[in-house]
């Protein structure tokens, strides 16, 4: 589907909407519903963005979808100023990996503004993140665990077409600065029949699959690997519960603990590096707040502790997959 379908079409059952189109539609809706919204980033105007996430929007909303120079620091800094003056800026990083050069404005200017002054900083920084084959060390990173450490930042990691749409709308409405981690691997792989009219609020996790033998807690592209693993283990007689965190900051500890209370076992899975990050935070919370719910040691599965490799052979081993997740689950269930 190459052009934007006018919203009504989206509800025709025969049109499938991708995760990427959901992000485009969410921006289209925000632009048409809220005059405070504008989008700023490299190549997002006439060209429609490196991934076409803004295709057609510059034409539909003249002057509100703006090409920026290659200046990530100034891109974010200017969004902060505009937000203070009442706008709702959406900044597109061409790749999450490049946010490291806009890092300071995000973590020290946007994140601290409200706490320092009482004035909110409602900006949304869209970060196309995650691994895809052949993308290599600098076009594959997942930085949610970096940004989530900073007080004041909301960090969202949508794993479904529906969440890509509704969570982006929620991010733009949110009074706080949001790091929106949209996963490139899901851009074309995921399709849905329609876009939702309502959704869970920011900060609520979702039980993506119910089960009673063990809980997998994950987010982003790994949700789908985890669901495949759960399916595989079903054939072995195991019922695996899979939780989609949706938001890693705030993190929905209650939903996770309630699940562990039922299953007694937890595996936290992320696509990124093993030191710290989401899996460490999840396991640390469960271990300290839900220790007595655990029938077995909690487990973690992350990517390997190297940059993301370019070659598909290496990449396929670097990140967790349905196979390594089901292997981990088997040993977790044996414990």
């Amino acid at each position, binding site marked *: 589907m190459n052009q934007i379908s006018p919203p009504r079409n989206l509800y025709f059952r025969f049109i499938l909407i991708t995760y990427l189109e959901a992000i485009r539609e969410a921006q289209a809706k925000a632009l048409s519903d809220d005059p405070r919204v504008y989008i700023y980033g490299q190549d997002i105007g006439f060209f429609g963005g490196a991934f076409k996430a803004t295709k057609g929007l510059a034409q539909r909303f003249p002057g509100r979808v703006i090409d920026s*120079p290659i*200046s990530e*620091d100034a891109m974010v*800094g200017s969004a902060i100023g505009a937000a203070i*003056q009442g706008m709702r800026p959406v900044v597109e990083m061409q790749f999450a990996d490049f946010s490291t050069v806009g890092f*300071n404005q995000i973590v*020290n200017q946007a994140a601290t503004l409200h706490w320092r*002054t009482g004035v909110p900083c409602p900006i949304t920084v869209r970060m196309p993140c995650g691994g895809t084959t052949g993308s290599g060390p600098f076009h594959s990173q997942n930085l949610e665990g970096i940004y989530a450490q900073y007080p*004041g930042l909301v960090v969202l990691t949508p794993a479904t077409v529906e969440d890509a749409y509704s969570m982006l709308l929620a991010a733009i409405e949110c009074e706080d600065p949001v790091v929106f981690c949209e996963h490139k691997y899901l851009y074309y792989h995921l399709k849905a029949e329609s876009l939702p009219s309502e959704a869970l609020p920011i900060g609520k996790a979702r039980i993506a699959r119910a089960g009673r033998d063990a809980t997998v807690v994950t987010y982003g592209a790994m949700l789908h690997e985890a669901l495949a693993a759960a399916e595989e283990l079903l054939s072995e007689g195991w019922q695996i519960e899979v939780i989609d965190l949706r938001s890693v900051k705030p993190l929905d500890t209650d939903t996770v603990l309630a699940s562990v209370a039922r299953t007694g076992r937890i595996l936290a899975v992320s696509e990124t590096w093993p030191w710290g990050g989401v899996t460490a935070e999840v396991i640390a919370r469960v271990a300290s707040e839900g220790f007595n719910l655990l029938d077995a040691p909690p487990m973690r599965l992350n990517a390997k502790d190297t940059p993301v490799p370019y070659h598909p052979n290496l990449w396929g081993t670097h990140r967790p997959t349905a196979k390594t997740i089901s292997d981990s689950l088997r040993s977790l269930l044996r414990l």
Partner: protein
Amino acid sequence: MSFTSAVPHPASKAPDFSETFRRAYRWMLLARLAEEKISSLFRTGKITGGVFLSKGQEAISVATGIALRDGDIFAPLIRDQAGRLAFGESLLDFTLTYVGARSGPMRGRDGNVHRGRPREGMLPMISHLGAMISVVNGSLMAHRFQGRRGTVGAASIGEGATSTGSFHEAINQAAVERLPLILVVTNNQYAYSTPNSRQFACSDLVDKAIGYGVTGHSVDGTDLAECLKVIGGAVELARSGAGPQLVVASSLRLVGHGEHDDSHYVDPRLKDLPLGRDCLSVAEATILSNGWADAVTLESWHKDSLLQIEEAVAYSIREAAPDPSREDWCAFATKEFAEG
């Protein structure tokens, strides 16, 4: 913003130059004396954290602040006491923040020069040099989206901050968007202890203007009359749609980098150069020689400033310090997001 009562409000009709000069001088005087007061409080251990003074840069700063109007944006830096006052910051914001009072604009959460009132156009600096300029750009982009015409934004930095990537990205962004940004670079010859020879290699920082496609201005920062004309002129150019204006003002830092610093590293010969003059004395001389006020009047302004400062300090030190138990300890504006 609400002005302190010290200085008569600008007449609605364009004020004549001597009137503007007098107002500017009085803000400079108030700033100088207020900073001297804070410095003495610091020396007697009554101020926690850093104290950064403007001495030698009041003329540049005031010329910037006084050229701005309500609705404009100002991103002052660590040596902008005079400009802050002229833009409309109350003396209480200054004293309450330095003593860390809960009732100050930063509520003790942030201190000294990090104060601001974003909604009123006064941006609260973060420490990272160069980082405020693009925030001014964005404010001006917002005004453009909102159809607010005629506003401008001024950002103040030192020559050392021209070495930051943030400075570069921001001035280029302003140029590409043709924003009404006035970027005032005060070249006070040092960045902390670092002399210009270790900071940049161009013969004059104003030579950067052409490489960005913005208008460049140079001004003797020790001469208030020049500062009012040049910086005021740059602001008017920006207001009239001429795009970003880069103003490079020369001066000498007449104090330590902060009050903890004896600045023994400053080359003594610089003090004998014209740029080593104290802009406050120069302004005073201008007033007297032009007969814009007599010695008696100057004396009364001096007294009046001291009174206000005493009042502000006396009030501020009686104000309550922040109370941890009354803090919500939540960085989010959306309180439901608070964890643990």
